[in-house]
């Protein structure tokens, strides 16, 4: 499994990927796998009023991956949103991505289950 960010020919990086780079409009022809990297928590919440099929509480965090070591990238960081493996998390914590087959029950919500994938990465504080 990979946590793919998109990268364009000008080195702009985004997660998730887009057909055209949101920064410059060039195609995002390559991807960068972030799954082996750690990230830092920018902000988080315990969401308690969750929709059908979603765990409660649902602890969510926006995290930032440092990508200054990536030669092909001109951006210094890329952010991602995800569930947190635990309810104990603080701003500034270092987390690593952990793959989960099903982040919520695809059958319980309004969306057609086949219309998208439901697996993804949670953030696990290290």
């Amino acid at each position: 499994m990979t946590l793919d960010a998109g990268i364009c020919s000008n080195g702009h990086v985004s997660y998730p990927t887009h057909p055209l780079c949101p920064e410059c409009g060039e195609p995002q022809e390559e991807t960068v796998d972030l799954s082996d990297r750690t990230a830092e928590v920018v902000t988080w919440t315990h969401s308690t009023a969750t929709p059908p099929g979603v765990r409660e509480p649902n602890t969510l965090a926006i995290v930032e991956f440092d990508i200054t070591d990536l030669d092909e990238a001109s951006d210094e960081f890329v952010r991602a949103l995800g569930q947190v493996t635990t309810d104990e998390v603080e701003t500034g914590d270092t987390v690593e991505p952990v793959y989960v087959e099903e982040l919520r029950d695809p059958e319980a919500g309004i969306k057609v289950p086949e219309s998208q994938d439901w697996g993804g990465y949670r953030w696990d504080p290290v």
Partner: protein
Amino acid sequence: MGVAVIGASMTKFGQRDAWIRELLSQAGEECLTDAGVAPDDVEHLYVSNMASGEFEGQTGIMNLLAHDLGVLPAYSERVDQTSSSGGAGIYEAWQSVASGASEMTLLVGGEKMTHKTTGQATDIIASITHPDEYKHGVTLPSFAGMTARHYLERFDAPRESLARVAVKNHRNGVDNPKAQFQKEITMEKALESPIIADPLRLYDFCPITDGSAALMFTTEERAKEITDEYALVSGIGGATDTHVVHERDDPTIMGGVVESSKQAYEMAGLSPDDLDVAELHDMFTILEFLQLEGIGVAEQGTAWELAMDGATAKDGDLPINTSGGLKSKGHPLGASGVAQGVEIYEQLVGEAGPRQVDADTALACNVGGFGNCVITTIMEAAE
């Protein structure tokens, strides 16, 4: 061509027995009466609504309403821009008159939501997010929680400042007979209410609401013939920010608010200092701060001070949400932006009753998603 607003109406907001058809026709009919316009004279009809199909199974509501109001064969269209559908409707209505395509345009916004459980309604609204956000169970309130935490931590703002927004808007709502809640709340009540997406609590969020609101637009020329009491749409702007919320450069800057208000000020030839009153989209208390900063009333990271000082209260320097805001008036998605327009129109023509402030220039900012799409409208009183 100058565009004028000559009539306004809104139904009672709250938990209503009526379904979408009745809500829309009630506001539409009252607006025709208020404007003194015959159904025959309506050339364009816009219906702002986010999700009548998902909530109720009723689609094609522009046709339904056009027939029910007897405005046939007027051009009709449903306008969806999620929570900013109402503002987008103002934009469409303004465009229709400004372009010369229509001399008389009726805008009706409405939503029927309360028959769904909170979870179901939250899910319908959360379906506006990117699939990679949705699969994590993200909700609009959870974006608000994460943004509020970042704002408070980064700008060293007190948690209390958010509660002050809720207390103020509930206070304003007491004077609005159409509001869902006409009830004051205390700081203690706001700060001790259940956590929804910490640091935000129940009283940091607007309720789920049924309701409808309407506005009548015409040319400045026709307005002069019809009435002495009208307002002019002197500036309007609309803009779109990233769909994926975490992709924004700065989580505390709402790019759509900045861009749309810049357009509106430029068109009107005005600046933030010229505003006398404003309606901001307080779906969450934190949004009042982000919009005050986005429309240039406060510097980044300082709008919380205005709440603490009382500068945004009804008797303050710049009254914000005299209607009670989404917080106490309620938030029937497609109706909200239109209802903001109704409030600033009533303030400008002197029909706001106990909510009346001294105002010649007013702004409304309607936010879709979590700042994903934004419409800013500036109206001025006719001379």
